[in-house]
C-alpha cells in the first residue's frame, strides 16, 4: 500500500501533511505515535470514515480493521459466530484458522459477553480473517490481553500476517508487540509518517523521546 501526497485533516486539525510512504506486504508494519497524532484517524481514513487529500494506492479488494472493541455482537453465542463464518467463507480457510487459533478450546455455547477478552479476540480473528482480506489494520488490538493470550495471538499473527499477499498495519502503544512480532517500524510525528527505523530506534524515540 502506498500513500502519495496524502494529507488528513479531522475537525479542522491537520494530522498528516503531504505524506509519501509505502507499507510493504508480507511483513507486519507497526505504526506508533503519541496520543492524538492521528494513528486511528489514519486507519479510519483508509476505511472511508474521514476524507483525505492525495492518493492511497492499494490492490486490496477487501480491507478489515480490528480494534480493541469486541467488533462482534456480544449477544451472540461463540457457536453462532463459528456457524456464520463456516456458512460465509471457504471451508479450508475457516478450518486452517480454526486450528491455528485453537478455537476448539473456547466454550462456544457461551454468549460472547461471557467469554474472556482473549477468547473474543480469537473469534474475532476467525470471523474477519476468514474473508481473506488483503489489507488488515489492527488498532490497539492486543490491549487488555493477558500474557499467555498475547503470546498465542503473536504466534498466530506472525504466521498469518507474513503471507505475501497481505498488507498489515499494526497501530500500537504496546511495546510487547514490537518485541514479539518482527516487522517494519513507522512513527507518526510532526504531521508526517517516518519510516526506516530500527526496533531500538523507535523504542528510544517513542519512549525516551531521544
Amino acid at each position: 500500500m502506498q500513500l502519495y501526497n496524502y494529507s488528513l485533516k479531522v475537525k479542522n486539525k491537520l494530522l498528516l501533511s503531504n505524506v509519501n510512504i509505502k507499507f510493504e506486504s508480507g511483513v507486519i508494519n507497526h505504526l506508533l505515535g503519541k496520543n492524538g497524532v492521528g494513528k486511528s484517524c489514519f486507519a479510519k481514513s483508509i476505511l472511508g470514515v474521514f476524507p483525505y487529500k492525495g492518493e492511497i494506492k492499494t490492490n486490496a479488494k477487501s480491507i478489515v480493521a480490528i480494534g480493541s472493541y469486541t467488533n462482534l455482537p456480544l449477544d451472540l453465542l461463540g457457536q453462532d459466530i463459528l456457524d456464520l463464518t463456516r456458512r460465509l467463507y471457504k471451508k479450508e480457510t475457516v478450518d486452517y484458522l480454526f486450528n491455528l487459533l485453537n478455537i476448539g478450546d473456547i466454550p462456544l455455547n457461551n454468549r460472547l459477553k461471557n467469554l474472556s477478552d482473549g477468547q473474543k479476540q480469537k473469534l474475532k480473528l476467525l470471523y474477519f480473517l476468514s474473508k481473506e482480506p488483503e489489507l488488515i489494520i489492527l488498532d490497539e488490538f492486543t490491549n487488555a490481553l493477558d500474557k499467555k493470550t498475547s503470546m498465542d495471538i503473536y504466534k498466530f499473527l506472525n504466521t498469518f500476517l507474513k503471507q505475501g499477499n497481505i498488507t498489515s498495519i499494526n497501530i500500537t502503544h504496546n511495546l510487547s508487540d514490537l518485541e514479539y512480532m518482527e516487522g517494519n517500524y513507522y512513527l507518526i510525528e510532526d504531521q508526517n509518517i517516518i519510516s526506516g527505523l530500527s526496533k531500538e530506534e523507535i523504542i528510544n524515540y517513542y519512549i525516551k523521546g531521544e
Partner: protein
Amino acid sequence: MKIELKRGIRNKFFLIMLFLNVLSVFLGYVLLVVLDEVTKVTFQNFVESVYTVYTQLGIFIFSPIIIKQIYTDYKEKNIMFYKALNYNTSRYYISKVFMVIMGTIMGSIIATLLICVPFGKFNLFFIVFLKIEAVMIFYSILMTFLGFIFSNFIVAFCVSIAAWIIGMQISAISKNLRFFAYYDAINLDYQEFIKFLKNKLAFQSIFINIGENYLFNIIILIICIALVNILKRKWISNGV
C-alpha cells in the same frame, strides 16, 4: 435478516417487547379505572384507553428498547461485522426495522388477545390488531432511524421525545399538517378509530383508514431509507 432474528432471541428483545405490550394493556386498564374512574369497563372504552396508551405513551415505553438495538452496535463498534457480511447502510437499517417489527407483531397479537378475550369480541380482533400494529410499525421505523443517526443513546431518546412534542405543535396549526403527529389523539386518525368503536363509522371506512395508516408508514419508511443512504458515512463513523 436471520442474524438479526437470532440476536433478537439471544438478547431477549422479543421477550421484552411482549412484556412492554402487556404493560401497555395493563396501563390502559389502570388509567381507565383509576384516572377516568370508570366503574363498568366495556370493550369500547377499554380499547380506547389501551389505544390511547399506545399513541400517547408509546414513545416513552418502546423507544428505549428500539433505540438500544442500534446503540449496542455503535457502542461495541460492530459495524465492521456487518460490513464483512456485505451489508450497506440501507440493508442494515431495513434488517433492524424488520427485526423490530417482528417483535411488535408478536407484542400486538398478545395485546389484542388481552383486550378481546375478556369480552369475547373476536370479530374485532383483526381491526384492533391492525390499528395497534400500525402505531408500532411507525415507532419501529422512526426510532430505528433515530438510533441510526445518533450514536449516543440519551441524545437519540431525547430527540425522539422532542420530535414528538414539536410534531404535535406543528400539527395543531392546521389540519393539513396532521401528518406531523399522525397517530396522536388530537388528530383525525385517532378520532376515526374512536368513532368506529362507538359504531359511528362503517366497517368499510375503518378499512380505508387502516389502509391509509399502512400507506403512511410505507412513505415514512421510504423517506428514512433515502436519508439513511445519504448518511452512510455517519453509519461508518458511529460504528467503526
